[in-house]
């Protein structure tokens, strides 16, 4: 392709706190309209903001986790613009001295590792919510003043897949810190993208379009793919990209121009006089740093090192912190040096059950204790039940909360590996399937698998297929 895309992401994360950023109103989601408001977050005349301590700690924590340099001196600024969801008609944000700057996030993409630069991390207050009716718009200020952290990447991603990987890694890292929910559907993680294209080999950035209104991770990927294609087609047809804001329409799979008067935006930023600056000592920063847990990529590296996992397996297991901890418990409890059998179960049957059942794909949501999983894997490894039977036992375990041993006993599933008892079944099958026996003897090996299948059926799956195969071969030789 002649063109390459350049993508930068602006991610807003709602920080997990009890109260809003500048007042004591609750941040609880989904309450009656205008029930979680007070004079401060309503911006009534005369009121003043006071910063929530936890908000600053969370912001520093995320900045450190993204390898940003945490600013020793940080302050707030006013961003002035009129909109009905903005109670004061200015937003308290951070302009030239954000909490963190110049960090990075490592991501895994096809073809390996990649480092995406983080330009800045800054705090701001959320706006209210607007509901549009036929002839009126309604304002609910419950969300106004909810703490947001904006994380601005450098324009260093070159495909929708990279952007998706960046978002996944960012969400994962932040979730590890337990400072935000990062649920895009609920709006606790929001993502806007700056997209431009340029001829391959060109260093200068092209004119960018800002894409907004993407409400899921898939939406981000789809919107970016569409927007890149649109820009390339436009340029190839002799058109010009204009700097504008475009909204993603997930239903029709298109971005469209906001077409609002693109007035020169003039936010008239100036230092917020109602909030004195914040000075972070190295000691404070060190203390917060100590509370940062092992992050996904460190954990993955350790899994590879300590448990001999492949990079791919480790990458899957560390996405979610609770699951990663669960996986580690399982691996630790699993006997022997080779952890591959239990890992295969975790990222295979367990993950697919989790995806089917919870949607979110959380292993811990299945309620299988590590020792129970190990017991199940033990049965399979010892060839007491087949892999297939094992999967069925797992389903049963999730449904009934019984142990694998109890289920195998109840359903009488122990494999028959005893040649004596199997021979009777095999002889009956040979008698009943003369044609297949003939085909096999004429060299059609497929017929043998059919015969094995018949024996399995006859024993209700309990026969050890390997033993059956061996016996059949011997008999028909």
């Amino acid at each position, binding site marked *: 392709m002649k063109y390459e895309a350049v993508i930068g992401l602006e991610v807003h994360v709602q920080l997990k706190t009890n109260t809003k950023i500048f007042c004591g109103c609750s941040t609880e989601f989904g309450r009656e309209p205008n029930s979680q408001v007070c*004079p401060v977050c*309503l*911006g*009534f*005349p*005369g*009121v*003043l*903001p*006071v*910063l929530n301590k936890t908000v600053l700690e969370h912001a520093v924590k995320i900045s450190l986790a993204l390898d940003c340099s945490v600013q020793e001196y940080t302050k707030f600024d*006013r961003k*002035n613009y*009129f909109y*009905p969801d903005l*109670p*004061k*008609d*200015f937003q308290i944000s951070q302009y030239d001295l954000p909490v963190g700057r110049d960090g990075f996030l490592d991501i895994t993409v096809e073809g390996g590792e990649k480092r995406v630069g983080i330009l800045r991390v800054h705090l701001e207050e959320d706006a209210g919510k607007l509901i549009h009716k036929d*002839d*009126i*718009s309604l*304002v609910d200020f419950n969300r106004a003043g909810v703490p947001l952290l904006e994380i601005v990447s450098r324009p260093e991603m070159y495909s929708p897949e990279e952007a998706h990987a960046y978002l996944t890694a960012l969400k994962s890292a932040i979730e590890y810190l337990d400072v935000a929910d990062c649920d895009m559907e609920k709006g606790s993680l929001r993502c806007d993208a700056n997209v431009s294209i340029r001829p391959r080999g060109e260093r200068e950035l092209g004119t960018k379009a800002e894409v907004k209104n993407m409400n899921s991770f898939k939406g981000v990927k789809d919107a970016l793919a569409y927007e890149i294609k649109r820009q390339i087609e436009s340029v190839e047809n002799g058109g010009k990209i204009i700097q504008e804001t475009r909204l993603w329409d997930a239903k029709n799979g298109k971005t469209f121009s906001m077409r609002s008067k693109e007035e*020169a935006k*003039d936010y*008239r*930023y*100036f230092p917020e*006089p*109602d*909030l*004195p600056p914040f000075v972070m000592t190295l000691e404070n920063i060190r203390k917060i740093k100590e509370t940062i847990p092992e992050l996904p990529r460190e954990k993955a590296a350790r899994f590879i090192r300590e448990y001999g996992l492949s990079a791919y397996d480790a990458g899957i297991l560390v996405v979610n912190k609770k699951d990663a901890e669960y996986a580690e418990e399982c691996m630790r409890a699993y006997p022997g040096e080779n952890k591959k059998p239990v890992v295969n179960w975790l990222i295979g049957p367990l993950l697919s059950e989790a995806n089917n059942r919870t949607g979110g794909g959380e292993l811990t949501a299945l309620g299988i204790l590590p020792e129970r999983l190990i017991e199940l894997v033990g049965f399979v490894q010892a060839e007491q039940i087949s892999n297939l039977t094992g999967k069925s036992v797992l389903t049963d375990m999730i449904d009934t909360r019984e142990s694998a041993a109890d289920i195998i006993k109840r359903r009488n599933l122990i494999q028959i590996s005893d040649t004596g008892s199997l021979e009777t079944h095999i002889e009956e099958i040979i008698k009943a399937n003369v044609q297949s026996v003939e085909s096999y003897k004429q060299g059609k090996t497929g017929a043998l698998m059919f015969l094995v299948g018949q024996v399995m059926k006859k024993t209700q799956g309990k026969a050890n297929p390997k033993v059956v195969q061996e016996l059949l071969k011997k008999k028909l030789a």
Partner: protein
Amino acid sequence: MELAKLTCHELLDLIGAGKTSLEDIFDDLRKRIGQTDHKVRAYVRNSQTENADVCPEICAQSILKGIPVTIKDNICTEGLNTECCSRILSGFRPPYDATVIRKLKEAGASIFPVKANMDEFAFGSSTENSYFGPTRNPWDVKYVPGGSSGGSAAAVAADEAVWALGSDTGGSIRQPAAFCGVVGLKPTYGRVSRYGLIAFASSLDQIGPLTKDVRDSALLTNIIAGYDPRDSTSVDVEVPDYTGALVKDVKGLRVGIPKEYFVEGIDPEVKRTVEDAIQKLKDLGGICKEISLPHTRYAVPVYYIIATAEASSNLARFDGVQYGYRSLQDKAKTSLIEMYARTRGEGFGQEAKRRILLGTFALSHGYYDAYYLRALKVRTLIKRDFDDVFKDCDCVITPTSPTPAFKINERIEDPLKMYLSDLYTISANLAGIPGISIPCGFTKSGLPVGLQILAGSFREETLFRAAYTYEQSTPWHLQKPEL
């Protein structure tokens, strides 16, 4: 007995001695307002003052025993109209009390239920820019009372209030105090909580008392001062008992007289009166010496950039969405942007528009560095001037205003001339230091002249000591206007 003429501490003494009651005080105050406020117009809706009544829950054991305090129209009082004398806030009744109001109530004060007049959003130096019409100077009703706390100052001067609260962003307490012959204190920035004070310029605003004498000033400051967890800019410094500073003794007090304040532009009568006052302080044992505040001439331009920039942002919220005035247009046909522009175009008066536009300009793209940022830097220089002076001075003495009160309508069409009446008061706001204005004499035509005393941050005690000594050695505070 003419109770309305008395100070708060005198009334407290009378109540303590069983010689009067709160009912009597209210009766006399209402009577006085009835007699004089149609001339002075210190209150915004003076027809309602007849409803002013004793607050029933006032505890006899409280410090203030229910004695009423008059409040400027920009300090939020729960359930009472607080409109900043602007059409755009018409009918606004805050669902909360300002911290100073809460403190006053806790000390047993009655909040006088009708607010004192002011320039709209405190934008002005004459109280002519009020949606409710101008207040007049009790000493001569053809003259302005000063501003923006002109209603508070005039009410106290006319004995229509026992005492009052005002706010001071560039002189809005001290200048009307000087024009009306009363005592006005602007405390150190951060000394008194701004929570509930409808902001004009957040980095300059401060609430303070307007009183009939220095003792009342100290008493009221005692009550309103102190750290407030709702105001991030209030300072957690212990509040002394300011009445303890009321000592009649200035021997050895090092007084700086800034030469820049006595040059061109000063009215000769004001100059002479203030020089007499300085002589008096020398006679009382003060050590006066000439000092220099070299950046004085830049104070007004710096102020009009910083104050209007902050105001343009602070006043954005008056947009017709949540409270106050909304332009009454055909709802279905009015777009949002039209609703905003009409509401604000109709709701703000001329001076408010002028300042919002100036402030918006100073912050706008391409001008920020040349105006706003530069002003913040010059502010640093002005602050340094004072830091240097207070290294070897305890206080600085100046006239409060270059002129006595001017005539109504005299400056209203000339904003620049109006701005210059704050020439001597603005620096204290820029430097964050406290300042007090006390009466120091009269012009030949009988208008009061004010003496301003400035001190270093949190040195209010120095102000009270110097002011008290001067006041107790002179007769000025005892004079009353004839109305």
